[in-house]
């Protein structure tokens, strides 16, 4: 997605800190510049210390392109370097289908049904919905 109708007033996505978790709720469509800024904000938040998990709620996002998928994967990889786990929650069915059809299955990214499940996932340590079959 490009910079949208107002490139100079590109919105900011608030990054909330709840204890040792960073909570990001994305509302509406995410433009490229906003996504980039979000990535920087989260990086700074994790680097500030004391953060063990990042929850990105995208239940308000209806359109996802390959760039946004890459940003999500990069946020996860970057946070992992700083010892924080990233969980993406609330992805809509249409978005999931789009990503799969694009071939972007985002391996290594943890997912949860909603924010509550994501927080529960983080609080119970390792595991989550993505793991090797046994």
């Amino acid at each position, binding site marked *: 997605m490009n910079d949208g109708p107002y490139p100079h007033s590109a919105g900011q996505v608030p990054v909330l800190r709840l204890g040792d978790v960073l909570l990001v709720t994305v509302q509406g469509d995410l433009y490229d510049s906003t996504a980039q800024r979000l990535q920087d904000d989260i990086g700074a938040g994790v680097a500030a210390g004391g953060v063990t998990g990042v929850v990105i709620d995208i239940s308000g996002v209806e359109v996802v392109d390959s760039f946004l998928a890459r940003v999500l994967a990069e946020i996860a990889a970057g946070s992992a370097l700083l010892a924080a786990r990233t969980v*993406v929650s609330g992805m809509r069915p249409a978005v999931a289908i789009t990503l799969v059809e694009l071939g972007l299955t985002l391996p290594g990214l943890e997912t949860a*049904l909603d924010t509550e*499940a994501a927080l*529960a996932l983080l*609080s119970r340590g390792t595991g989550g919905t993505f793991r090797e079959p046994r």
Partner: protein
Amino acid sequence: MPEQEAAEQYGTPAREVGEFLRRRRAQIAQRWADESLFRTVFTVSRDEAVESGLAVVEALAAVADGGRVQDSDAAGFDVVRERLARMGASRSRAGLSTARVSTEVDALRPPAEDLLVADLPDAPERVVRDCVTTLTVLMGTLRLVVLETVLSEGQELIERQRLQLLEVATPVIELWDGVVAVPLIGTLDSARSQVVMESLLEAIVDQRARFAILDITGVPTVDSLVAQHLMKTVAAARLMGAECVVSGIRPAIAQTIVHLGLDLGTVVTRASLADALAYALRESDTGRASAGPGGSGRP
């Protein structure tokens, strides 16, 4: 030559047949009402059969006037096409084969032919022969029109049933709190697997399901395409935060998957639906137990 003169007072065979049909339309319709095609379709009243017969005769006359006795697309047929379709459809619903319907339409010809011959007592033999031939061709065209409508009716039926199958064959059921399952039955094509994927993902959102079970006990064969669809569904469910379990892979299908060299390594598989449910319950239990206080508030 006297015969030549006699022939000249007659128009072209098509025009003669058209005039004859209009002149004798009441008699022809009465005779046709007794034939099995009209008799069996219009069982309620004979008047209705006669009225339908009249409409068909008039359409034939219009076609004959236009001189396009061989053309099944002639404008004259448009008026009766719906009527014929209804008759043809009713006959094929009654279990008649297309050939039988064709025979029944053909049975309309002899009565009309008899009337035509009786109608031209003084005409030279050649004129009578030409007229009979034209009438035969015309009736053949009528037969073609009826068969066309019967066949298109069959096509519509198939299309309708295909859509019904799409809706009916993909129920998503809630097996347990937070566990949904889709029992897949029949062959999976792209259209069906798309519907399965969409309804499963919708159900995951609606039921807040942590686990989704794809049961393929009823799928007769699995090829690489079907396997790819399964993998896509599993990946999409994972992106939404649910875990997908594939169950009910029969030994023969397992062999096929191995032979095809398909890698289902990232997919959790279980032998039966019961095993898959047991797995889901155990997993959600351990998840809840280790979550401890302040963990998931799901009851």
